[in-house]
């Protein structure tokens, strides 16, 4: 396995590790978004979806374990790369003008860390039920865990709504760079699909921000109600 260790420690290997783990996280973000758009289909559907996920048993824990591993690897590699990159220029420029990069590409470490903090909070809120424990144990009329009401009641809280809007925006800025960058890192690059390489990140970020903001805003504007 020493060959694999030296691979992920190399500059190219580390960025490919970021690409592969990042891609896994983007796919999760897409599935997670689609799942929550189910809020628009009413309490019964949404609770059925939540019930289905809860009922996956062992599979659920495998998915959670895999996701956690990917996440931790992405985070640790990202932090160590950001530190090495900062150290690679000990004396900074007095004047430096960028012409090609974007502000979201240059703030990957920052947006990544804020998203990390948000995800911890998000899990404490909706997975562990620590933030609003009163809403966590409702059951619906079919005796299922009432995820729908937890969602609605949660986002009725303005503070929670605003923190969510900010976090999702930062996540999508992170993805505006990352969700396209992996193609270059893995060497998937050809004039035939150069348009994809160039635009995949911003395009996906726009889709995700719309998809993630719609249900909570739906709650805020009373399109989704109890």
């Amino acid at each position: 396995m020493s060959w694999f260790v030296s691979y992920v420690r190399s500059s190219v290997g580390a960025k490919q590790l970021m690409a592969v783990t990042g891609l896994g996280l983007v796919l999760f973000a897409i599935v997670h978004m689609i799942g929550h758009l189910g809020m628009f289909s009413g309490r019964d559907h949404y609770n059925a979806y939540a019930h289905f996920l809860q009922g996956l048993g062992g599979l659920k824990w495998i998915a959670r374990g895999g996701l956690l591993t990917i996440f931790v690897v992405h985070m640790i590699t990202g932090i160590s790369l950001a530190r090495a990159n900062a150290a690679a220029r000990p004396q900074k420029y007095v004047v430096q003008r960028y012409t090609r990069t974007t502000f979201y590409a240059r703030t990957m470490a920052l947006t990544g860390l804020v998203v990390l903090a948000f995800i911890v909070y998000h899990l404490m809120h909706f997975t562990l039920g620590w933030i609003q424990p009163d809403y966590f144990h409702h059951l619906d009329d079919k005796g299922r865990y009432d995820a729908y009401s937890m969602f609605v009641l949660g986002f009725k809280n303005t503070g929670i709504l605003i923190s969510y809007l900010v976090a999702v925006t930062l996540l999508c800025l992170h993805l505006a760079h990352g969700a396209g960058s992996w193609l270059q890192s893995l060497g998937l690059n050809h004039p035939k699909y150069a348009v994809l390489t160039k635009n995949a990140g911003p395009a996906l970020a726009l889709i995700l921000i719309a998809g993630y903001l719609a249900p909570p805003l739906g709650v805020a504007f009373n399109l989704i109600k109890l």
Partner: protein
Amino acid sequence: MSDMNLTLHIWRQAKGTAAGAMKTYQVKGISEHASFLEMLDVLNEQLQEKGEEPVAFDSDCREGICGMCSLVINGRPHGPDAGTTTCQLHMRRFKNGDEIYIEPFRAGAFPVVRDLCVDRKAFDDIVAAGGYVTANVGSAPDANAVPIPKEQADRAFDAAACIGCGACVAACPNSSAMLFTAAKVAHLAHLPQGQPERLRRVKAMVTAMDAAGFGNCSNHYECEAACPKGISKDYIALMNRDYAKSVFVAKDAKAVSDGAG
């Protein structure tokens, strides 16, 4: 056209181990036809007349082909123009009364030798690690003795246009040397002579690049924007691909881990 008076802010550093700082100078009567380096020559004459140390900066060919000139001018390596080395930058690009900030190419792997001169030996180390073909090929073969499709030859030539100036490193937010290394890898990867050692080469050169202390590429593409020779970031994709192959696909794992011969 009238001559220009300029305010220059220049990084002065007596030697690598000394602390440096920006220092301000005035130059007067610069012709718009002068090159940027000629403008610095004028400044140095003024300094010498006053008995001050002239500003040290690198140059050699002064025609955009040797890669010796460097300088970050107003925050951009080789100055404001695309596809231009510092020696090919002309003063008509500036106007009377401008303030110009002049700094060395900055990277830990490019230590300052003096003032604006940096040591780019790390690039030599990368090339020495594998930027060649080991077979002794004798004298130059007849043209077209080895058939090479025109597109391949063009791409090899585009990569070979890299003059090793280091502007890619200087421009990169991460001080990464990926564009330079990729150009050297891609040049040979597009030619039949480069095939036998292709994966061994990419592995050895990336290893040397990492050992030199350059940063890691995170796909900002400032390198491509700064490169005076228009080297494409697509060569970095090729290097990424070949590097992965050298790790996951190459059969001669032993030879690979030993580096190029």
